[in-house]
Structures are given as structure tokens and as C-alpha cells.
């Protein structure tokens, strides 16, 4: 722990029981902190999750029902009723599901309980991407320069030119990339606008356009912020989450290998400033797009992020503990100056999916799980041996997080941990993650949101035929008829010992 942290005695909490309204690895991760603070944890779960680690570990688990498993976890009234029945004073929504649902946050408050997160008004503001962007711009923070034709059609071309190049022309009514044009030179702007308008008309029956600054191979940088109910806001530095597939993050790290100390200070201060302007309370994340020395506000997530552990590793601060303290109306236990980072942390998301088949989700049963051992390793895992892996939920199974004194040490530790991690019974992306972390471009920190498109071989590289045959040779010995045929065949003089079936 690098930051001084105040301790509240068990008797000092305004609640003694926390309801965890989530599942998988995050339910278990929240449960660990709740119990470490001598509070009681109640976990809700759908029947399909009754064998999940968090449900097994919780002193009390309440089954919730729904037309589908996901519907159960989205059923606010049922969850609030469960919290009341269990005597919970506070609900931790985790991430996903109801975590950014303002109506749920309001209903929790109306029931006399505490929702762990910001106020419903802030959730609503940041949930509306257009309003959020306007709010950030109004407070003087950077958003990507843009021009909207509808604002004043007569001056659109001039205003578009003022945005700067390269820029992207988009149909106002568009979607799915249709009718979008990248313009790199002012001399072709006018003709590209004409072309985009005709395409917009053709595809969407609407020729109105807007333009925004285009960033080539951008990086995704986000900043962890934390606010209390007394107006204090701090940042806990940045995370880089540029390696993505289908706009979902795969690898996150902190600090970003791309930023200078002054850029880091600037982006972190900007994030804290946005949170301060919004009157932000509890943990949140401000996301930016970053490239060519510029960064622009993308959106703010008003909840705990999947990738929060990398921040915890380098700052020594338990973010769930701080969330509970803020929910208990405690002031932050530290100032900005108290927060320092040590070393480098990398998180790899282990998904039930097939990278070689376009990252299609996979299903099965977790027959064997062996987590690796090593210094600086943390594994947040949401499945246990014997548990079915279905398509009912998000395919993320676990997060493998490593901490090292610098990026290279963290990277080596990630490689070693990925090499040792075993999950049998359902195809996962583990060997793909190993190839990714081992890739020379990743080693150099040369990453951007199009990284996997630029290096498709990372996803498609097959196991060598020789390795495959050797694996089959070993596996075949576990098949009774193969083994029996060998044992019944001509015997050598020496008896064999030590074989297990």
C-alpha cells in the first residue's frame, strides 16, 4: 500500500451487509473485499450460476429468476427485494447489467438503500453520449473537433475545413461505416462532400452530413477517477486499452507506454477536471482517444471497470474498498499527492472464444483449471471446475493480471503466467494472448485500436502439426481401447509402474 488509508471499524459502517448484484469473476472479487472489511456479503444468482465460485464462497446466496439468465440479473425490483430480505443496506452493481442504469440507482435510493455509484443524474448525463460530449466541451475540455451541417448548412464547407485534416465525413443518418469518407487534403474536401451527400441520400434517404477530426491508428487511454460525497475528486492515473477486438478490450496496462510524463499529467488532470465538473461521486473512468500528441474525450463510464485491477496493482489502492467507503459517506482517505504508482501492470482477458474463427464464442464445461504461480500474479476468475460455459453471458472467464518493476518484467511475467494457465473443456483465447504479448510490436508498445487487424497472424496462427500429433499421442493413452490394446499386446520384460488412468 503506497497511500495512507483510514480504517473504519466494523461498527463504524452505516451498513453491515452488502448485496452483490452481479456474477462471475467480479462478484467474487467484490466479495473478497467486503469480507476483508468484516462486512457480510450476499450474492444473488440465477440457477445456471449456482456452482459459480462467488455463490459457493458467499455466506448467503439468493436465487433470482428470469425468462433468461440475463433477464434475472437485469430485474431491478427482484434484486431490491432480495437486498431488503437479506437486510443489505447497500447494493454493489459491479460492471455491466444494472451498473449504469439510472432508473435502478433511483429505485435503490427510493427503497432506502444505497447504490454504489454516482448520482442518477450523473449516470444519465454520461449515459447520453451527445449530452456528455456537449457537457465536456462546455467546461473547456477537449473533444474531437467537429462540424455539423445542420447547425448552419450555408457555412458547412468552411466549418469542415476549420476542423483540420485528416477528417472523416459521416452521413448524419448513417451507421455501419456506409457513406464515410476520410479526407486527407483540403483540395478534395468539396468534391468528397458532394460524393458523401449523394451516398447518404442513396443509403439512408438523407443527405445531411457531419465531419470530425480523424485520428489514424488511435490509442485508447482512460483515466481512473474517484470522488466522494464531500466534493473531493482524485485520479488514479491512466490505463491503456488499445488492443481490442470488435470494440472489446483484450489487454490493458498501466502506465501507457505511449505517453510522456507531461502528457500523462495533462490527461489525468483533464479526467479529474471532468469528474469534478460533474460533481462525480464514487469510482468512474474517463475514456479518451489519443493520437499524434492529441487526446479527445470519448465517454465516461460511471462504474467500476473490468480492467480496474491494473490500477490497484500499481497504486496499492483497493478500489472496491474505496467504493464502499464513499458509499458510507466517508471522505476520501487520501489526497492526490498521496497517490503514487509503482512499476507496471498488465491485464489479459481470458475469453471463451476462438480467435482463429473470428473470435466466435465457444462453449463447453470447465473440466480442469490450473492457475499458474509466479511473482506479481493475480488471477480474477469466475469459473470453477465442473461449471458449464454457455453463451448465456459475456464470454469473459477470467482476468490474468501481472505486476512487475517495469513493462518488460510485467510482460515476461504475463508470458510465464499465460504459458502455465490451463483451462480444459472449452476452447479459450489463452495461447492467442500468449502470441499477442510475445509479439515484437506489442513488446515495443507499438499498439493501437487497429492492432489485431494489422497483425491478423496473431489470431490465425495454428499449432504446429508436430505439436498437435504429440498432444494426440499423449491424449490417446487416456482412451481405454487404445491403452488396453497396448497393454494386451506383446509385453517387454520390465513391468511398468506409476501409470495412472
Amino acid at each position, binding site marked *: 500500500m503506497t497511500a495512507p488509508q483510514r480504517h473504519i471499524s466494523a461498527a463504524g459502517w452505516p451498513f453491515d451487509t452488502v448485496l452483490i448484484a452481479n456474477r462471475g469473476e467480479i462478484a467474487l472479487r467484490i466479495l473478497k473485499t467486503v469480507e476483508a472489511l468484516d462486512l457480510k456479503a450476499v450474492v444473488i444468482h440465477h440457477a445456471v450460476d449456482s456452482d459459480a465460485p462467488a455463490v459457493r464462497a458467499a455466506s448467503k446466496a439468493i436465487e433470482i429468476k428470469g425468462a433468461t439468465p440475463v433477464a434475472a440479473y437485469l430485474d431491478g425490483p427482484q434484486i431490491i427485494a432480495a437486498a431488503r430480505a437479506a437486510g443489505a443496506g447497500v447494493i454493489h452493481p459491479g460492471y455491466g447489467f444494472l451498473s449504469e442504469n439510472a432508473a435502478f440507482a433511483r429505485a435503490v435510493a427510493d427503497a432506502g438503500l444505497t447504490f454504489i455509484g454516482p448520482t442518477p443524474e450523473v449516470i444519465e448525463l454520461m449515459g447520453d453520449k451527445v449530452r456528455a460530449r456537449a457537457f465536456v466541451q462546455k467546461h473547456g475540455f477537449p473533444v474531437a473537433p467537429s462540424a455539423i451541417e445542420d447547425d448552419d448548412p450555408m457555412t458547412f464547407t468552411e466549418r469542415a475545413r476549420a476542423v483540420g485534416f485528416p477528417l472523416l465525413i459521416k452521413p448524419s443518418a448513417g451507421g455501419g461505416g456506409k457513406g464515410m469518407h476520410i479526407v486527407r487534403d483540403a483540395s478534395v474536401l468539396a468534391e468528397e462532400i458532394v460524393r458523401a451527400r449523394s451516398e447518404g441520400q442513396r443509403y439512408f434517404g438523407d443527405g445531411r452530413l457531419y465531419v470530425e477530426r480523424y485520428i489514424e491508428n488511435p490509442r485508447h487511454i482512460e483515466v481512473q477517477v474517484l470522488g466522494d460525497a464531500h466534493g473531493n475528486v482524485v485520479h488514479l492515473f491512466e490505463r491503456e486499452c488499445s488492443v481490442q477486438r470488435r470494440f472489446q478490450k483484450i489487454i490493458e496496462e498501466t502506465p501507457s507506454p505511449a505517453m510522456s510524463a507531461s502528457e500523462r499529467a495533462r490527461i489525468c488532470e483533464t479526467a479529474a477536471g471532468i469528474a469534478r465538473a460533474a460533481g462525480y461521486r464514487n469510482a468512474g473512468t474517463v475514456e479518451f482517444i489519443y493520437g499524434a500528441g492529441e487526446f479527445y474525450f470519448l465517454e465516461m463510464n460511471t462504474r467500476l471497470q473490468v480492467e480496474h485491477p491494473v490500477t490497484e496493482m500499481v497504486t496499492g489502492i483497493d478500489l472496491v474498498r474505496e467504493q464502499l467507503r464513499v458509499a458510507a459517506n466517508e471522505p476520501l482517505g487520501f489526497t492526490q499527492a498521496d497517490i503514487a504508482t509503482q512499476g507496471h501492470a498488465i491485464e489479459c482477458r481470458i475469453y471463451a472464444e476462438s480467435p482463429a474463427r473470428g473470435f466466435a464464442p465457444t462453449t463447453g464445461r470447465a473440466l480442469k483449471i490450473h492457475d499458474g504461480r509466479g511473482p506479481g500474479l493475480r488471477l480474477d476468475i469466475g469459473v470453477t471446475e465442473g461449471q458449464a460455459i454457455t453463451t448465456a453471458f459475456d464470454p469473459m472467464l477470467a482476468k490474468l493480471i501481472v505486476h512487475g518493476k517495469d513493462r518488460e518484467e510485467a510482460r515476461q511475467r504475463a508470458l510465464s503466467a499465460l504459458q502455465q494457465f490451463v483451462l480444459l473443456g472449452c476452447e479459450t483465447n489463452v495461447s492467442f494472448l500468449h502470441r499477442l504479448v510475445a509479439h515484437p510490436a506489442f513488446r515495443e508498445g507499438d499498439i493501437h485500436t487497429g492492432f489485431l487487424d494489422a497483425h491478423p497472424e496473431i489470431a490465425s496462427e495454428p499449432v504446429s502439426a508436430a505439436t498437435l500429433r504429440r498432444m494426440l499421442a*499423449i491424449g490417446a493413452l487416456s482412451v481405454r481401447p487404445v491403452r488396453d490394446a497396448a497393454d494386451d499386446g506383446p509385453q517387454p520384460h520390465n513391468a511398468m509402474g506409476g501409470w495412472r488412468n
Partner: protein
Amino acid sequence: MRAIFSIDGTEYRVFAQREADAYRVHVDDCSYRITNDHDAIVAVDGDTIHVWLDGEAQTFRYHEPVAYYGSHADGSTDDTILAPMPGTVVTVMVKAGEAVARGDTLLVIESMKLETSVKAPRDGRIDTVHVAMGQSFDRSAPLATLATLATVEA
């Protein structure tokens, strides 16, 4: 007799022999000496064999010789269309007994928020549709079976 294993449609012929302090396992034309101190981890689930070795995990299917040779004799395994990935059935376009031509859409499935048409691999007659609208399924689940060519000709 050699045992038959497959991975993603590729078949391997395997047999093992005992040696003094190891097994000699022949996989097609290669042979491997496997001792009991190998670092692999194996999990067997019915006819499915999962093997982990040095950071790689692979799944093999063991084919019972009787079922394997039986099915290949009448060609029926090739006539069942298996799900390419887990998903949900959006529309079923055909009924049992219906004649279809190669390339006809049999059903539409949804996976990863994308709709995909499942098409007939050849001309034939629908023997069974294994799924209904709205039903979800795992990868390799049977979706529809085409009647064998012999039945169609008859």
C-alpha cells in the same frame, strides 16, 4: 486396429505399444515415446479428449470403430449439418420431407449478433430438422439432416 481420432475434420490413425518404461504411440507416420513424467494435462469427457501441453490446449474426438466404419459405410455423417458456432435459430426455412437443392437456405441462425444462413451442402431431401425457431445450440450441434442419396433415389 488403429484408433481414429479427429480434430476439426482432420483424421489421425493412432495405435500404442508398451515399451519397458514408456509407451510408444504411433500417430499416422510419426511415433512418439511417451513416459509418465510428461507435463501434459488431459481431461476426458466421453469421446472428447482435451489435452494441454506447454500453453496450448487442443480437443480431439475419438471415433468408436464400429460407429465410425458403420457411419462411413452409408455416408450419413456427411448428411447432418452441424452448427458452425454456438447461437440461436432465427428462422427455419424447410420441413422434413421437403426437397432442397444445393445452396438453398435451410435455416438462419444468429451468433455474435450476426445472422448467418445455413445452406444445403448438396441436392437432397430433408430428413430431420433438429432445431426449432428461438432455440439455442452449441457449436457442432446437429441442425438438419439430409436424407441419404440412396433414399432419395428410391
